[in-house]
């Protein structure tokens, strides 16, 4: 963390939960919506999405080290990651689309190892960080609130999710995406080109992932395992939100992030992603239909 926040009293502690929860929810949100979008339109778990975060973060670092300001760096990294996503779709996934979810899933695992391995070969295993000018946190009600970076991240993340919603709901390419994910054959009949829609989905989803990666790097540090760590959280969010439900995922990101922050009061911080899954497991145990029943679908079997 760039800012250091020493909790002074109980009120400060609760404030911390709120702030940390908000920040981590923002990043989880940004990483998960893209994953959910791909899951919804393509119907498989894109494990390599975690490595898109890694790619975004390290591309950002490269641009930043070239002397670019952090804002164009983030945009550049997102665009680059988006194009890699499009490339992945065109070269890897589109040709084997008909072979079923398991083949696509493990092709994605393969792609994840390729990205992970190549980034590792170039950047090495050391922990790295963005070289940003240090800033002090804003004060709010006499308590340290957020740094300008953190505030920007929260705003950008929430705004991106909101834009995605507006895009899906009100623009014609957005409606095409929804139509294709609901029923590809029907969409084709209505004159929508599923292929073009798919390219768009992959670009948007991957770019959001790349952006999330840069944000993760700004908030903490860059290390090779970050993609794998984040995909675990993304999967947890996906289960909680209901597989394939984009709006469910948006809500789940917040539920999960705050759940984790509260849970961390009781267990060590190294249990972070474990805690996310504990939440999921408890939800499934208590109510097999899970929270996702709220959005329809349900995780249970028909018999």
């Amino acid at each position: 963390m760039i800012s250091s926040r020493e909790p002074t009293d109980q009120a400060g502690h609760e404030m911390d939960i709120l702030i940390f929860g908000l920040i981590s929810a923002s990043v989880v949100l940004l990483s998960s919506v893209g994953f959910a979008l791909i899951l919804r339109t393509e119907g498989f778990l894109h494990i390599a999405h975690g490595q898109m975060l890694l790619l975004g973060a390290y591309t950002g670092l490269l641009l930043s080290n070239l002397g670019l300001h952090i804002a164009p760096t983030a945009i550049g990294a997102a665009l680059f990651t988006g194009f890699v996503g499009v490339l992945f779709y065109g070269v890897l996934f589109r040709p084997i689309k008909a072979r079923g979810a398991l083949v696509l899933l493990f092709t994605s695992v393969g792609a994840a190892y390729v990205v992970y391995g190549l980034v590792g070969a170039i950047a090495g295993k050391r922990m790295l960080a963005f070289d940003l000018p240090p800033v002090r946190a804003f004060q709010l009600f006499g308590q340290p609130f957020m740094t300008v970076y953190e505030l920007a991240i929260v705003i950008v993340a929430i705004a991106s999710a909101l834009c995605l919603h507006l895009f899906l709901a009100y623009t014609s390419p957005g409606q095409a995406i929804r139509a294709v994910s609901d029923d590809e054959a029907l969409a084709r009949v209505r004159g929508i080109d599923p292929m073009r829609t798919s390219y768009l989905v992959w670009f948007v989803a991957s770019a959001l992932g790349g952006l999330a990666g840069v944000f993760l790097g700004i908030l903490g540090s860059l290390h090779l395992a970050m993609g794998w760590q984040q995909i675990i959280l993304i999967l947890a969010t996906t289960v909680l939100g209901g597989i394939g439900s984009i709006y469910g995922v948006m809500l789940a990101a917040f539920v999960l992030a705050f759940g984790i922050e509260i849970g961390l009061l009781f267990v060590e911080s190294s249990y972070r992603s474990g805690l996310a899954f504990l939440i999921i497991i408890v939800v499934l145990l208590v109510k097999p239909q899970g929270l996702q029943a709220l959005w329809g679908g349900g995780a249970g079997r028909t018999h």
Partner: protein
Amino acid sequence: MEGLILFAVSMLTLGAVYGMLCLALNLESGLGPLWDLGIVSFFGIGAYTYVLLTAPPAADHQSYIFGFGLPMWIGVVASMVAGGVAAWLIGLPTLKLKREYFLIVTLAFAEVIRQVYANEEWLTNGVAGIYGLQQPLRSTVPAMQYSYVLLALALLGLAFAWAVTRSIGASPFGRACKALRENEALAITAGIDPRGVSMRVYMVAGALAGLAGVFGVWYTTLIIPGQFEADLTFFVWAALIIGGIGNQRGALIGAFVFILLHDALRFIQVSGEWAVTLTSLRTALVGLALILILRFRPEGLFGERPVTFAQRTPQEAERA
């Protein structure tokens, strides 16, 4: 030359451990209906169970409270029991889930379990791990020859896993597993109880993976949480896909091909910075192999084949 042979023996031993995991995974995911992304859970639980039962009590600098120093065979049996029981416990809430949820939740359990190894120092000595663990039959041969003994033991374990999975595959129970994989609704009309059959096959796979955990410990002589990351699950899946899902022989060959692909480059000795690059490229190579296999030979090196019956009727049997 000597070094090369020892390296090959070591790779074969590791291949045998992977082979056991592949056979276990093939049983539940190739033959059976379970898309399990948490096979490493049982591998780890088997390994830790074995170590905690057989290791000596903790030294001053260590903090685990168990370490009973029991005989190895008790540890071996216990590792299988622990793997099976763990599968039962995980299966209770998860086997009622749809396949894609099962996939994620088993991955989740594996991650939670790994974090337990890393954090609960009183139980596992945490990330520091436990080093210098005993190997079986160590004192019977000169140190130089021990790796051959270990290889023989690993192959014995592999043969055991082969016999168990093959026998299940040929049994009516194996057919029930396959029927569930192929068409669950129809299998139900044949009177097959999906929960019960899935649970049993999941437990057997868990027990075999637990046993593989013991061999993993014998191979490395140490145990640390880092050995039980989700990577291993993906590697075992990759090996199985390369070899051919649903085919016993494929599972076996896949394991050794994978080791060749992933670990053979380890023989090249390089210095510091280059070693990191090489390790990373090795991982990328595995990813590339997985992509290419799925693209151009999705059934793997040995695809599933129709099961035929050499002898159809008693009359034919008599004639033969």
